[in-house]
């Protein structure tokens, strides 16, 4: 068999080999250069293909490196950064200077430059990380979490262009005043701080010991009528806040929310035993000790979708946190969230925790979602056992020694319905435009097993356009929390009446 043209060899390799052998030496020699060419072409194309394939990742790698180079030295993670305005007195100084006098909150301190470390008075920044930023403004960072010892009391930063360092005192607490929707004053600190409260008549002094305060108060129009003035007592030491109460206000009730680094100041009126929002003053011996606030859904269970990337679980948690604060300040009881953050928690776990804690009350917050409805009404729900008996069963359960887990609520159902009535009345007033809507009964998993007065609240309708935007706003969430807190407060007077 003779092959005229070796380039026609496009058969399988076995055929190729057998045919090649049969042609003899002369043909082999003749076709060899062409074959070599073919192989060379293949190899070249293969190499170029590989080059093309490899080019993509290597280019992106370069890009990635360069972007990191611009962003900084990579010493700091984002959590170490803090905003510029949290450094109250920032001083710029050349980082290579041997020594520099800096003034920190009125004190003159000597800052010395040293190789690998800098000293400020007797304090040395041993592990001070240096960050070079692309922005021209100083980028302060917080070495509190990274540098132990004396350096923890200081803050420092550098300016990229001129390699300047900036040092300011970190031994201060930033305190801001805010008037809440229910008329109480909230003093919010940026970190935990201990304060001693002294009350002399209409003068309330919050003494912060050696901790210095940077205080941003309320402007004239924001100032509530029950406060005459509010300022730092001694500006030079900056460690006490003085609140002068207006005439007619006998004293103020101060409550610290350690979990939120906040202090709540609430007026107690002289002539009229009512607090600012019209709720009755607290009798000496309330029996309530513990309230559970349940933020609906959480973790993998996102609840209904309010908007893209906005889910019921996030909104319920935000409202629950506000409600916790409102209840803590108004009722002075321990308020526990059934889920403190965005975590998956089964209803069984929530019920167990509330029952074991012997909570006096549970309020569960949900967001409504009803496709056909064009209105956004809010409802209070209590437990029901459709098809499993009614009042008779309730009475039976109350007399039984052992109560089935899923029927634990039967014993508290009457009180739950009164609680729901109180909640629904407040919801109708604040959120349902004054309509007289009734409470509803449902076979809810959570409510059925709770051995305490319990109510499930469903706010609005996630399908309604107006509600979709409102529910994400702080003002709506504050209103919802205040409404529910008022309802609970009213219910308590009913529940604890002798």
């Amino acid at each position, binding site marked *: 068999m003779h092959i005229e043209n070796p380039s026609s060899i496009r058969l399988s*390799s076995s055929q190729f*080999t057998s045919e090649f052998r049969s042609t003899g030496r002369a043909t*082999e020699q003749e076709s*060899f250069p062409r*074959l*070599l060419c*073919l*192989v060379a072409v*293949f*190899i070249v194309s*293969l190499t170029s293909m590989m080059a093309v394939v490899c080019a993509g990742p290597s280019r992106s790698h370069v890009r990635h490196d360069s972007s990191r180079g611009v962003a900084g030295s990579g010493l700091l993670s984002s959590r170490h950064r803090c905003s510029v305005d949290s450094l109250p007195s920032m001083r710029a100084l050349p980082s290579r200077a041997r020594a520099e006098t800096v003034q920190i909150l009125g004190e003159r301190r000597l800052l010395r430059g040293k190789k690998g470390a800098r000293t400020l008075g007797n304090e040395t920044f041993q592990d001070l990380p240096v960050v070079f930023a692309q922005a021209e403004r100083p980028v302060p960072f917080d070495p509190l979490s990274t540098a132990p010892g004396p350096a923890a009391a200081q803050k420092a930063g550098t300016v990229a262009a001129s390699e300047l360092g900036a040092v300011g005192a970190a031994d201060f607490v930033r305190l801001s005043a805010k008037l809440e929707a229910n008329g109480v004053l909230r003093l919010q600190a940026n970190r935990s701080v201990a304060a001693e409260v002294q009350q002399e008549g209409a003068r309330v002094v919050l003494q912060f010991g050696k901790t210095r305060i940077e205080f941003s108060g309320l402007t004239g129009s924001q100032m509530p009528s029950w406060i005459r003035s509010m300022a730092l007592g001694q500006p030079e030491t900056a460690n006490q806040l003085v609140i002068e109460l207006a005439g007619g206000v006998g004293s103020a009730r101060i409550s610290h929310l350690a979990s939120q680094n906040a202090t709540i100041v609430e007026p107690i009126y002289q002539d009229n035993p009512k607090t600012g929002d019209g709720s009755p003053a607290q009798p000496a011996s309330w029996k309530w000790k513990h309230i559970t606030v349940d933020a*609906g*859904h959480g973790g993998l*269970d996102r*609840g*209904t*979708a309010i908007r893209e990337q906005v889910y*019921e679980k996030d909104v319920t948690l935000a409202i629950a946190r506000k409600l916790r604060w409102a209840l803590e300040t108004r009722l002075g009881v321990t308020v526990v969230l059934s889920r403190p953050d965005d975590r998956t928690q*089964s*209803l*069984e776990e929530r019920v167990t925790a509330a029952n074991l804690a012997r909570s006096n009350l549970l309020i569960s917050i*949900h*967001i*409504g*979602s*009803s*496709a*056909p*409805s064009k209105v956004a009404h809010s409802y209070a*729900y*209590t437990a*029901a056992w*459709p*098809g*499993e008996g009614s009042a008779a069963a309730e009475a039976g359960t109350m007399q039984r020694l052992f109560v089935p887990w*899923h029927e634990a609520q039967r014993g508290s159902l009457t009180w739950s*319905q009164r609680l*729901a*009535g109180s909640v*629904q*009345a407040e919801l109708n007033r604040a959120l349902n435009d004054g309509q007289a809507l*009734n*409470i*509803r*009964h*449902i*076979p*809810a*998993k*959570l409510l*059925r097993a709770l051995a305490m007065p319990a109510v*499930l609240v*469903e706010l609005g*309708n*996630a399908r309604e356009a107006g509600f979709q935007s409102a529910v994400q706003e702080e003002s709506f969430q504050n209103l919802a929390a205040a409404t529910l807190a008022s309802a609970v407060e009213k219910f308590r007077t009913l529940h604890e009446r002798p």
Partner: protein
Amino acid sequence: MPRHLLFGLICLLLISLAGVSYYYDLQQRIQELVRPSPEPVPYLAVPPTVSPTSPLRMVKLFFPSSRQENRLEGEMRGIRSAQLPSDVAKQVLSELIGGSQEGRLPALPPGTRLHELFLTKRGLAVVDLSQEASLNHPGGLTMELASIYCVVNSLTQNVPEIQQVQVLIEGVEAETLAGHIDLSRPFTEDVSMVEGNQPATLSGSQ
């Protein structure tokens, strides 16, 4: 055989191998691109044993109303008669999952399938739904309650042998369908949400 020839051959082999695999890969990708949209997923994992020639019978399915909140509306549908009540029930649920033909809201979320349905002698129907029933559920308490009672009422009204309905998700007892309503206990028929009846479950007084 000379060494350079052997080398050339090996190279050629490798290249042709790479070429063939690339060709198949390309062909597969093209096939994926031009493949027609997947067949509609059957709603029933285990189809009922029904003869296609058996006579039709009418059943009344319940779907959430698209006009009123917390209301279920009936919709008539033809299914094949079957001897076993479970076969009737499976067809009822299959039709229910398929959705309304008269513009009502879906009773169960899209993608839901019925894994299994069996009946006990005491009239309890155990309905095992796929996880989509829970995962794809739009949420909301009233919608969740409507979904459950669409299933329960459609079964109890059309299959006299069924008195109670227990819903399972992926073969196991689930806490809820969408975070509110207790699925651990069987449900009995509740027509209070059905149009024309006085609502009871969802209403109350202050």
